[in-house]
């Protein structure tokens, strides 16, 4: 009896026929054996995938036109994911301590730039991506305005969007302090000095933001926690509402 090793295509077929493979990819997945390019399987491909099911099965054709959305909302979300991933990487190499005499935060920044494998590159991605996200969120808002997509029944989702814009600025600004270099503390000093002019609660506002009278180690700890945990958490909550309301309000807004 001659035993012939299976060809790669046979092996692929057997793999895709296995119970393990079928348990991972739900019916309609394009990776599953027997996917047919029919309306039904196309619908299942969207519905039976945890990422894609944020989408409806079908969308209005005009919404696909690049010049209608410029993909700005989706790209803002993608940048948020990218910033989360690169941010987690950076967290492994960064300590938010800036005590007098030994600014660990700044030393760690230098370490990321010089000794960490791909550290400089990932930091660049994080920083440029962050600026780009502020930009794309602002442009997304302009796009929504120009297409009149905030009109009923989408009023509330516009308000959620304004909150998301505010949170995006907050995330970017809190991240700005973390390198603990001259650029960081003076930009933050200028930016937060305005809070000292709030009516009635100037001192309280200043203390709330800085954890002291001037930008110092307490500020760094405070802004670090806001940057890596508190603000992303709140942002994700509002993001969920934002996406959910898009679907509930009837998908993409009408053509012009």
């Amino acid at each position: 009896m001659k035993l012939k090793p299976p060809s790669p295509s046979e092996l692929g077929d057997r793999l895709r026929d296995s119970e393990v493979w079928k348990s991972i990819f739900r019916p309609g997945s394009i990776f599953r054996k027997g996917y047919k390019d029919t309306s039904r399987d196309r619908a299942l491909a969207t519905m039976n995938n945890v990422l894609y099911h944020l989408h409806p099965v079908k969308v209005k054709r005009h919404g696909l036109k690049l010049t209608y959305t410029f993909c700005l909302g989706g790209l803002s979300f993608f940048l948020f994911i990218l910033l989360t991933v690169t941010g987690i990487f950076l967290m492994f190499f960064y300590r938010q301590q800036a005590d007098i005499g030994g600014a660990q935060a700044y030393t760690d920044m230098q370490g990321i730039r010089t000794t960490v494998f791909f550290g400089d590159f990932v930091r660049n991605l994080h920083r440029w991506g962050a600026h780009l996200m502020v930009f794309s969120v602002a442009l997304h808002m302009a796009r929504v305005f120009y297409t009149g997509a905030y009109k009923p029944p989408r009023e509330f989702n516009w308000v959620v969007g304004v909150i998301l814009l505010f949170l995006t600025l907050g995330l970017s600004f809190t991240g700005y302090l973390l390198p603990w270099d001259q650029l960081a503390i003076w930009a933050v000093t200028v930016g937060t000095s305005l809070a000292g002019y709030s009516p009635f609660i100037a001192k309280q506002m200043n203390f709330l933001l800085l954890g002291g009278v001037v930008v110092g180690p307490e500020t760094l700890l405070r802004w670090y926690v806001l940057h890596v945990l508190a603000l992303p958490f709140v942002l994700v909550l509002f993001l969920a509402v934002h996406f959910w309301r898009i679907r509930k309000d009837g998908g993409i807004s009408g053509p012009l």
Partner: protein
Amino acid sequence: MAREDTPLDQEVFDRVLKEQLDAGTDKRVAEGRARSAAVRAYKTAHPEEEAAPAAAPAAGGNGEAQAPAAAAATPAAAPAQAAMVAAAPASAPTRTAPLPTGNIPTPKKGAPDKHRLLALVPPEGIQRVEREQGDRVNVWPHLLIEEFVAMFVLSVGLVVFSTFLNAPLRELANANLTPNPSKAPWYFLGLQELLRYFHPMVAGISIPTFILVGLAAVPFVDRNPSTRPGDRKIALTLFTMMFMFGAVLTIIGSFFRGPGYNWVWPWAQGVFFDL
């Protein structure tokens, strides 16, 4: 269609329809209300017809909810229950649900552990909802491929940019050494520019608050339902002006301000700007 066969009082239908339309109700809603009123009027006038043909619409296969429900009930019980429920409106025109007692009902002894649902929808309760399917395309592949390409292009751009351009890292923070000029991050430079002209209370507190609250209020202020650019000239002009105003201030703050936050020409004295 069983719905069309439901007897109704044509006079009442015409009268209510006219009333509703005169009151400015949408035509479809008005028709639905008129039909509902007319069917009810007919039933009150002909109580004797209630019991006999009540099962007919249910068996007619019109309502998707009705036919399976009737089939699910045991054959013997179905007509009796149907008659009972259908007869109810004649004696009690307004139906109210029983008040909650707080007692959780326990299943009777010997009750089958399957549970059955019986739903009877009175014909006047059926509203036909028509929605334009419109010109729609499948998300997979059309939208998902577009999203993928957008993501890919952005990623490549960002990777190339990050490979060749390093993010700035200046010398260690020093609270005693103020750099000249000291600038906020670029998205706040519009506000910093305003500080040149207004009291900090105005530039730093009042105007940002006004911008945020004003933005959130946009959909509640602009009640014009049209999305056609031709119908929204004022809204578009105002928004464009505000957006441009912010952009110009930001650009001035970024590139045209140098040491001492004084005016510089970026091509002559250089750029004092960090990202």
